[in-house]
């Protein structure tokens, strides 16, 4: 558990997502990283159904799981408040179905290969919304360091050898919290940010059609 940067890697026109993932994987293997299984981050969306007035937007709670913390469950509200709890929290959410209801076909998942390189953990995978491919996710974690501002230099050096200019700046979520002690909730927040971007993108695409 150390500083983690999560990026969405753009898929160039005329290439399939799978091909780009393979290119990235080969690049990571060339660095000398060793495969160490798979990773999975999933995100469910719950919406409040009780509305005090018509003008107020329904409140949303995102429930995320990260395979890196298999015994934990992360709940993030609209206001990006994050609650870290045991996986039992899932059951509690289902008990609250009179107040919060799971949105249908809104489950997002990021799945892919996990690599280890010294004290780094690298992950490359594809993000999907309800089973359809949305984009590529690259995650790099540097385990020994707990403060993002300290290790950004060396993170950038490694990231740029994998994803190039995509990693010129730290991820926006991380940028705001660079100086605090890192916690896994920041990683999950980054994932949620990317998932929400994918959702918006697909929504605009649908409108555009």
């Amino acid at each position, binding site marked *: *558990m*150390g500083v983690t940067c999560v990026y969405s890697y753009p898929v160039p026109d005329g290439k399939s997502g799978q091909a780009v993932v393979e290119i990235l994987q080969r690049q990571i293997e060339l*660095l*000398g990283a060793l495969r160490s299984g798979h990773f999975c981050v999933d995100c469910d969306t719950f919406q409040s159904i009780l509305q005090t007035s018509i003008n107020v937007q329904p409140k949303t709670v995102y429930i995320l799981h990260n395979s890196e913390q298999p015994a934990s469950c992360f709940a993030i509200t609209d206001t990006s408040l994050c609650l870290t709890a045991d996986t039992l929290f899932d059951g509690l959410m289902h008990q609250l179905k009179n107040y919060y209801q799971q949105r249908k076909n809104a489950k997002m998942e990021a799945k892919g290969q996990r690599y280890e*390189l*010294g*004290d*780094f953990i690298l992950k490359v995978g594809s993000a999907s919304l309800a089973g359809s491919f949305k984009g590529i996710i690259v995650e790099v974690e*540097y*385990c*020994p*360091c*707990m*403060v993002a*501002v*300290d*290790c950004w*230099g*060396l993170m950038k*050096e*490694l990231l740029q050898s994998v994803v190039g200019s995509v990693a010129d700046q730290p991820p926006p979520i991380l940028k705001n919290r660079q100086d605090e*002690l890192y916690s896994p909730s920041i990683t999950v927040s980054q994932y949620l940010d990317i998932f929400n971007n994918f959702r918006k993108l697909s929504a605009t695409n649908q409108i555009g059609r």
Partner: protein
Amino acid sequence: METESKLKSTLDQIEHINQAIRHTQRLRTHVCQIFRDIGDGLGEAAKSEEEQQAQERQKVLLGSLRSSLETVGHDIGELDKVGQTLVPVSPSANCDHVSLDPILDRTPLYSQVNTSYKRTNKMHEFASLAANILSQNALKRSPHQHPAGGKRVKRHMNTASMVPQAVVDQLVATLDRQHQDMRITVSRPLGSCAVMQMVLGRVLKAQVVLRGLVIEWVKVKGINEEFSTENGKVDIWSKSRYEVFQKISDHAAAAMLHYYAPFMPDIGIRSFTLWLQGYSNLFSAPCHKCGKYLQNAMPPTWRDLRNRDPYHDGCRQ
């Protein structure tokens, strides 16, 4: 030339000895003859033969006896003469035998003996010269060591490791005050030996086991790792799960030996602490030599022992 004359004189000597032996033999035969003649005597002849014949025979006998005695006298004289020329054999008989060796010219013994003698001479000369020079420049291993100080050195080392606990506590408190970004606490889970826990900013934790004021053991771990076992005891053995801190542990052990100063034990701890503080920029400083952050997926893990400049393990001189 020398050998030739020697050989000649030896040959002469042998000739003399031969002569002497011959003379002795002749002398013996003549003396035997005389005794035989006298032994034969006149007795029976005088009885059986005529008086005249007997007188003749007596004359002959006396004549031959006289001549025999004369030759004996002559022989003795000659033997005497030869005996005077004989010299007693010298005690270095073997050397003479060597020079008598008929294949003398073909044996290189003499030249060999000569060269080895020269070599021995030269070696002796050089050895005495070297001894002279060495006695002028005595090899001193350390500036503190002097011939009469052997006992003192031992006493100093003892005092470095046998320091009252209060002194150690005081030193740790001073160090804690001196280094703003370092939190140093001390505990004694192993009896009188102090265990220093150092927390350097938000970068690393270090555990230093002291014996008196001598650093005995150093381990470095990440800021999110613990130096205690599950049941709350101090754990000085386990290593960090991160490669970076395993490497730094190794470097710290090397630095601990480098800063070891039995004569001024507190200086050793002070300089080690100062050196360890150099790791406060472990993740944020690029290598001083190659200017990069990463080498083999490791940040610059080495800090120069003098100026604390960061270097990769592969970049340090």
